[in-house]
């Protein structure tokens, strides 16, 4: 079959890109070669629309061992231990086939982590669905949760945290972002850069089938009416094989047999072989007759583009083949020498003894397109002048109950109870808190992790929203007593060819970048998912931040559960009553206009660091950051977690109660302090110029605010817990 422009366009390439390919090659590519280009030049693999903007992210720091560009980022956690972590999207496949899409998302991100020599120790996920009224939502949620659980539970890695939201902008494009954290010895990290010539290239893991061909190209395009036809592009996961692959790889990694290793993820054998060669400035020769295939008569094109799961490509030291083979055979996995490194700087593919394709590596990698797409600046919206008469018919307690039982705030226990969150025996903070925490096995150290996104804020004003999510992630680390270390980000956006969407991307990124720089919270890995758009309707910009933090002594970990009666709860940070874009405005008043709450990075840093120092000195009995829903929701969550009530002080001055209790001003924490310590704590806060006020006093069972609220914890608990159960199980 000779390749024409039309075939190239059907592969997702643009006219000018096909022309460029022909120019580079000085001929028309054959079908296998076209396959290679389409796999490497699509948005998902080439980052062609995002590359120039990603450069502005801060990616270095004292603790950073490896920033973006590898399979995952690596940070130092002392004593020769390091944490390897990354987040990745699996949005498009999960919408087409939620169980397999989500499952293989989890499988893929775990491989990225253990490829680097790290044993995964925790998983997290950030999942976003359409309106709860949308008829597809329930099944998609069920499928995604089953898929995430089905894969993670089987492998035996605890899922320690996550985030689930509902918004109609996801009706046609759900988001499934999966994050994995792994533990590695600093001197045993494995990289994907191949070195040396004539080294054997090894294929291990599952056999190659026809599943997932063009998965990465599919994720680089918008959806139309024909998504059912795309089912074959979704990969099928096998967690059992992944578990074997994990154990086999870690066993082989105990010595120095491996020169370089790369998982076959998006664009399968194509991207893994080309990336390894490209990083090492080498060539690679592949003999596709040797690739273990599941189906007969697979063509070179299919073998190169298959996205069958649970496969790895390894460059070995010469002479180590037998040893490696033994290990993989013990674990009942396929093992084949399928090629070698060369000095040609080309990828050369042989099939049936004949050379089937030959392309210089740099054409596929360095020469891939890079676009500086047009983008539109998004102005800060004017403040929404909400008519205060709207409040008149509302009662504080009714609003609280409504928010607690709203889809985006209600307890997500229905979801996380389906994930094994305690296997491996080191989970010391379960899902449902500000961050999940796992111990570094056998030490006093622990790692905290959380995923955060705020699509409403990012939609209203991307620059502020971008800053906000980083700050929220930072606060979640502080709230469990961890020092924030670094982040990974998953940038979920609409169609980059539209100026508005591109503008959202550029400005969110600017916000993320500014906040990360200020907070010294660098970005060490991540992924971009564009084209989350169906029939011209795109998602709200949803960058997701996966943050990790470090606890030197896990016994100093804090949680949000109130500890005992008669303690003082302080609000740290100033409450101005910012209502625009709050859940109170959007869900209760149905007012969607106005700017998100302002971010003051100085206050964020100062408040956070001060709270962390108070935690480390043992003064803070419990702590929770104030986010969606504002103060009253935050304190209720603390009460529910600790099964302890609170008598709330009436706010002083002329503040409006609704704005005070439901405003979503940033940079705030609620902290529980024993009466004996209160003066000391106040003096520390004053000394550091941190604004604070007394919010209330803990007491048995009831949440009380004079003249407004008197309600039992049990009643609030029921309201908070039943919404999702009823929605899903009835």
């Amino acid at each position, binding site marked *: 079959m000779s390749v024409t422009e039309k075939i190239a366009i059907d592969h997702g390439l643009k006219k000018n890109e096909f022309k460029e390919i022909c120019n580079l090659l000085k001929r028309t590519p054959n079908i296998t070669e076209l396959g290679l280009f389409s796999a490497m030049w699509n948005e998902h693999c080439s980052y062609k629309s995002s590359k120039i903007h990603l450069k502005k992210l801060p990616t270095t720091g004292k603790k950073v061992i490896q920033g973006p560009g590898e399979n995952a980022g690596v940070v130092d956690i002392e004593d020769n231990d390091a944490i390897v972590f990354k987040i990745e999207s699996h949005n498009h496949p999960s919408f087409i086939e939620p169980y397999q899409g989500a499952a293989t998302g989890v499988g893929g991100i775990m491989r990225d982590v253990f490829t680097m020599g790290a044993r995964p120790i925790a998983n997290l996920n950030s999942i976003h669905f359409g309106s709860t009224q949308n008829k597809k939502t329930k099944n998609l949620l069920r499928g995604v949760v089953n898929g995430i659980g089905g894969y993670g*539970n089987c492998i*035996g890695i605890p899922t320690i945290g996550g985030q689930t939201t509902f918004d109609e902008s996801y009706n046609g494009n759900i988001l499934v972002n999966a994050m994995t954290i792994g533990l590695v010895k600093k001197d045993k990290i494995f990289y994907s850069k191949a070195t040396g010539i004539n080294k054997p290239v090894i294929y291990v893991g599952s056999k190659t089938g026809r599943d997932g061909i063009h998965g990465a190209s599919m994720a680089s395009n918008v959806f139309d009416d024909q998504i059912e036809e795309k089912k074959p592009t979704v990969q099928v996961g096998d967690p*059992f094989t992944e578990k074997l692959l994990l154990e086999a790889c870690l066993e082989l990694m105990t010595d120095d047999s491996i020169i370089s290793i790369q998982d076959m993820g998006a664009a399968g054998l194509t991207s893994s072989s080309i990336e390894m060669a490209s990083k090492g400035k080498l060539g690679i020769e592949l003999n596709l007759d040797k690739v273990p295939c599941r189906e007969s008569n697979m063509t070179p094109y299919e073998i190169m583009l298959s996205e069958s799961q649970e496969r790895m490509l390894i460059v070995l030291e010469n002479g180590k083949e037998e040893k490696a083979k033994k290990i993989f055979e013990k674990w009942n996995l396929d093992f084949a020498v399928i090629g070698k490194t060369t000095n040609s700087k080309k990828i050369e593919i042989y099939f049936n003894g004949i050379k089937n394709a030959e392309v210089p590596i740099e054409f596929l990698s360095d020469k891939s397109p890079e676009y500086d797409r047009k983008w539109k600046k998004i102005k800060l919206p004017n403040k929404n002048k909400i008519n205060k008469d709207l409040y008149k018919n509302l009662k504080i307690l009714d609003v609280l109950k409504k928010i607690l039982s709203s889809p985006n705030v209600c307890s997500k226990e229905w979801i996380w109870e389906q*994930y*094994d*969150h305690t*296997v491996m*025996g080191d989970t010391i903070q379960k899902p449902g808190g500000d961050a999940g925490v796992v111990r570094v096995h056998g030490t006093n150290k622990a790692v905290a992790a959380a995923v955060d996104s705020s699509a409403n804020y990012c939609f209203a004003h991307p620059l502020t929203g971008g800053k906000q999510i980083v700050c929220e992630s930072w606060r979640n680390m502080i709230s469990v007593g961890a020092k924030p270390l670094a982040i990974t980000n998953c940038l979920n956006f609409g169609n980059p060819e539209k100026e508005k969407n591109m503008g959202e991307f550029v400005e969110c990124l600017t916000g993320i970048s500014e906040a990360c720089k200020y907070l010294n919270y660098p970005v060490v890995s991540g992924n971009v998912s564009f084209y989350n758009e169906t029939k011209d309707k795109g998602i709200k910009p949803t960058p997701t931040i996966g943050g990790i933090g470090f606890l030197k002594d896990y*016994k100093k970990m804090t949680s949000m559960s109130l500890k005992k009666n008669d303690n003082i709860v302080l609000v740290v940070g100033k409450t101005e009553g910012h209502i625009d874009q709050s859940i109170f405005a959007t869900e209760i008043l149905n007012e969607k206009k106005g700017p998100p709450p302002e971010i003051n990075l100085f206050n964020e840093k100062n408040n956070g660091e001060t709270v962390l120092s108070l935690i480390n000195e043992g003064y803070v009995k419990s702590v929770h950051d104030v986010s969606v829903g504002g103060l009253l929701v935050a304190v209720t969550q603390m009460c529910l977690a600790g099964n302890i009530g609170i008598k709330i002080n009436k706010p002083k001055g002329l503040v409006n109660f609704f704005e005070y209790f439901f405003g979503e001003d940033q940079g705030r924490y609620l902290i529980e302090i024993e009466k004996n310590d209160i003066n000391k704590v106040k003096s520390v806060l004053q000394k550091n110029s941190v604004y604070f006020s007394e919010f209330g006093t803990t007491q048995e069972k009831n949440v009380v605010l004079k003249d407004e609220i008197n309600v039992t914890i049990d009643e609030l608990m029921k309201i908070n817990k039943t919404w999702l159960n009823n929605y899903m*199980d009835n």
Partner: protein
Amino acid sequence: MNSSVIVFPGSNCDRDIAIALRKFGFKNKMIWHEDVELPKSDLVVLPGGFSYGDYLRCGSMASKSKIIQSVIKFANSGGLLMGICNGFQILTETSLLPGVLLRNKFSKFICKNVFVKINNIENNYFKNIKKNVLNLHIAHNEGNYFCSGEQMKEMQENNQIALLYCDEKGEVNEKYNPNGSSKNIAGIFSRKKNILGMMPHPERMIEKYLSGEDGSLFFENLLNNLK
């Protein structure tokens, strides 16, 4: 005391149980599924996980593995054999214990703390234990115990029911049944009480910083009973 933990491909609680056993004073060996001989053991454990991916039926492939004949021989000669979660499923698949473990009632994987009442303390596992209600952790998709009426009658006559899902005070009621198990069964013994199969994971409850400490109580007591 010598313990052996059998490791199948797909086991994933093998490390956790080994850590727990060592913590409370057992010497422990990990035994690979392709081994044929068991080392001399006072206790053999079939750990939780997804042996062979649980692809056929949970525990079914493991019940045909190479090592299993030695395990059966060990149990038949009176050795203490404990199966936790997937281990319990393997025990029913080998017919060392009666009944089967079906898919949970609401077709959901469940990971949470539960209370279980100890129903029989006249055995090496629970003799002298300081509490009669334990707070343990479950994490399974197929823990819905089922057996024939005849088998149930026989088990009751022989006092083979080990653990029952209950509330914190020990009240056994369908309300506290997380997975639909017959009679709220969370664990059972063999006739001679040397084999124990249970869905809860005591090995995940061995420190106050984890989900709880009642697992410690179980292991300490077990070791004392064996001394």
